[in-house]
């Protein structure tokens, strides 16, 4: 899949990268281009190859085949020390016996800078990550979130062209994680440093990334902006992995028509032939229940099988009537539910807008 960017000169170009560990193929012909200043997330379940790809970019894991270029330079075979990147790990990997100041200054001291220069640079970085005055503390004396900020400052100290983040937030509490998400994104915006982050948390990827690379079994499933990936998942895997998605069996009933049991819905059927079985995918929040008239397009009646309270919304399980034994989950607001006064066993008229229905090949 060609995943080129709009401009002609990408900052990072990964071409046909294959990584094998013995018989196991961790990366299977991966190609991608990343522009300067972009924030890209590698997203996927564990074992999908996202960390291997990041480590290949860093030179920590050498790809078996393929080419990696950074800023027009072929770095495919270079050792990590000859590449230009800063890296932050899930474990922070802060040097435990060095103070916060020494940790951040570690890379600067290798550049033979003046002591005063190092001092001012470290203090600028501490201010940047909001840790002013913590110079003399040891990593063990800081909270997880603070340690991660030190790691970030250390990675940025030498002004690398590329910032690599390997699950940087996974080890943190949920609250701290949400907070740091914004801070990292904000920092990246201000510095404009090209950033790649590996995560298995779709929410993290959706909120932080300019573009998301969804991976599975060593291949790229889809590359796109968070909105594009959420709205138009290219494959059933992406549809299932990102957000919540209903999958029900259906049959093509003609051009632009798909049949679920006795319910026939209008949707984009592309060039699928009539009679072909497909998987019909609908997001729970795209099922409309407010003021639906029977005459409306794609409207049908279903029975409420179960209700689940989720706080701000209710998860409604729909089945029966024309759907047969198919089950659809709909997320309806508490407000609407109060209006409709639905209980299990009630019938309800719902509709699914045609442009919100996606079809995938059956038997994924």
């Amino acid at each position: 899949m060609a995943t080129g960017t709009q401009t002609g000169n990408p900052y990072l170009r990964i071409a046909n990268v294959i990584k094998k560990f013995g018989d196991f193929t961790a990366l299977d012909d991966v190609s991608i281009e990343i522009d300067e200043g972009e924030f890209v997330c590698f997203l996927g379940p564990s074992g999908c190859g996202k960390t291997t790809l990041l480590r290949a970019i860093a030179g920590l894991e050498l790809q078996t085949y393929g080419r990696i270029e950074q800023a027009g330079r072929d770095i495919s075979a270079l050792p990590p020390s000859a590449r230009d990147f800063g890296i932050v790990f899930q474990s922070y990997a802060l040097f435990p016996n060095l103070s916060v100041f020494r940790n951040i200054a570690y890379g600067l001291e290798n550049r033979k800078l003046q002591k005063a220069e190092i001092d001012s640079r470290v203090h600028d970085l501490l201010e940047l990550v909001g840790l002013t005055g913590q110079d003399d503390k040891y990593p063990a004396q800081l909270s997880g979130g603070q340690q991660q900020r030190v790691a970030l400052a250390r990675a940025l100290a030498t002004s690398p062209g590329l910032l690599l983040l390997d699950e940087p937030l996974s080890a943190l509490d949920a609250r701290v994680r949400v907070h740091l998400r914004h801070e990292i994104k904000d920092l990246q915006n201000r510095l404009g440093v090209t950033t790649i982050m590996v995560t298995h948390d779709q929410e993290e990827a959706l909120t932080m990334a300019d573009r998301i690379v969804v991976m599975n079994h060593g291949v790229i499933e889809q590359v796109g902006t968070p909105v594009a990936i959420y709205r138009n998942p290219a494959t059933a895997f992406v549809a299932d992995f990102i957000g919540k998605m209903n999958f029900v069996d259906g049959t093509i009933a003609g051009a632009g028509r798909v049949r679920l049991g006795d319910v026939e819905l209008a949707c984009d059927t592309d060039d699928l032939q009539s009679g072909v079985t497909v998987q019909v995918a609908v997001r729970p929040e795209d099922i409309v229940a407010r003021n639906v008239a029977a005459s409306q397009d794609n409207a049908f009646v279903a029975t409420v099988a179960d209700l689940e309270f989720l706080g701000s919304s209710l998860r409604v399980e729909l089945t029966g009537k024309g759907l047969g034994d198919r089950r659809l989950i709909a997320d309806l607001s508490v407000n609407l539910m109060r209006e409709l006064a639905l209980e299990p066993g009630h019938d309800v008229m719902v509709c699914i807008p045609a442009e919100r229905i996606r079809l995938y090949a059956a038997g994924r």
Partner: protein
Amino acid sequence: MAEAVAIAARPVRAKLSRDDVIMRAAMVVLGLFLLAVIVLPLYFMLSKSFETYSFRFESIEFQINDGDGWGETLNALTLGESLGVITPERITTTNGGRFQATELFPDFSFRSPRLYRIRNARPDAGGFMLGGGPVFHTDWVEVTSNEFRRVQIRPALSTGLGNYVAYVNTPSLFFSVYNSLFIAVTTTVIVIGLAFFYAYALTRTCMPYKGLFRVVALIPILAPSLLPAISLVYLFGNQGVLKALLMGESIYGPIGIVIGSAFWTFPHALMILVTALSISDARLYEAAEALRTSRLRTFLTVTLPGAKYGLISAIFVVFTLVITDFGVPKVIGGQFNVLATDIYKQVIGQQNFQMGAVVSVVLLLPAVVAFVVDRIVQRKQVALLSARAVPLQPKPNRRIDIAMAFYCGAVGIVIVGMLGMAFWASLIKFWPYNLSLSLNNYNFDVMDGGGWEAYGNSIRMALYTAFFGTVIIFSGAYLVEKGRGFRFGRGLIQLLAILPMAVPGMVLGLAYIFFFNHPDNPLGFIYGTMAILVLCTITHFYTVSHLTAATALKQMDPEFEAVSASLKAPFYRTFARVTVPVCLPAILDVSIYLFVNAMTTVSAVVFLYSTDTTLASVAVLNMDDAGDIAPAAAMAMMIVYTSAGMRLLHALLTRGLQRRTQAWRTR
């Protein structure tokens, strides 16, 4: 996804950074080092054990001239067989064996005017000695009768199983295999039984004075294995204080060896068992209690299976230590031969190096088996304890606690008693006739054995071993654990680092003679110097030190090296500024372990010391051999004082270090 797959034809080959090049070079150096200190010596020893010597009479020929010209050519074999002087037993010999040529000529007289000619008919005949030196060429050599009386036929070298056949067919040697196994099995059973309950008391009861009992049990580690044997001589020997207790049996023999071996191997078993019993999940015991399981049944179904791997490991460690030990059987073994003393007797006593090598190989077998089993068990034990296990807190039980305190007290009294006997004996003027105290026995310079210089040598040797050993072993472990790529090389070095554990000290020492004393070895110059003692001792104790260092390194974040590389810091900077400071406690542990073992070891160095490099432990051995048993006890006590002092210093250093680095170590 259907786009054409364009794969570069050739796999990507890593470009090496300066770090990689330096690390690989260091790894090659380390590999060569390990090759020279363990692999090659063992190889030389093995090939030595296959060297056999036999006379090639069929290839030696004579001619006689009684003034009337040279007679017909006579074959030595034909001559000897017809005379009955060459029998099959006489054909097999050692490298020092010689056959007098005149034996083949019964009418020989050195005053006779008769002339003789002799030659090697074939170049592989082995040659013959003639006045000044050996003759190997195949030309006739003409001698007078007077010269002919000094002609000796030399044996030729060949390789084969001859030595092993001879070994098996020599009852006095082969019986040692049985003796060694008997001693090792008996001692193992006794020590494991004693140590298991001692460890159980330390970990699973609320017995009082646990700290004291723990320290007392570790005392034997500070002493050479010769010390308990010397104590036993004073306690149960011919003039022993408690001789009556033996009811007529002699302490010189299996009884003494078993008691002495049990004394010094006890702490080794105890340490393993304490660790095994400390690893326990309280939830299992709570479950057993909830199911109303009896205490005995809980012990049999929960405690014992949980400590299974520790027990197996301890059994093999004790077995190996006993069967390879030389000190105890040397001092108290009497006429009871074991494998380790056989090597010593063959090499030092009879200068029969080939047979020494054969016994070494035999001794290597049980040690290798024990080593392999231990490795397998160690690998399995890793997964035993999940991170979620709840550590067991023993609950007080008056009856059991007091019973265990009495038990540990009894064991402790025996240990302290053995040490105390040696201490007392070292201070007594003339046992058993003049029991007044004096320091005369410490006046080593008036005795044979090496004097105070030997003690000084030991201190120097131990310091060198601790310093160079720690540097080499820790750097080596670092290369294996933290190197980038080069998986094959790292695996190979790991293997070489584990190997020394399987090699008994006697075997290593003998192997060093064969390798470093070989005339063609360019490293031969270190033979007979302090350097070879240090090298041998480092190698002897390499494995445990390596594993300690590797464990400490494994506990460090594996991404430190990646971060350093991204920050363009050379690896040696991170090594010096982060790795070493973080691992300092482990580094101190390794160095004290090497120091104490260098002070107490006898087995390996007994073959390698020279008159300038006599060691304290060797002096103990030599003084005991010469009958100076009181000074031997005194020297053994000097080793104990020194080891104990160093341990104390180590404990203080470690505590100071912990206080200084508390800020960053605790979470």
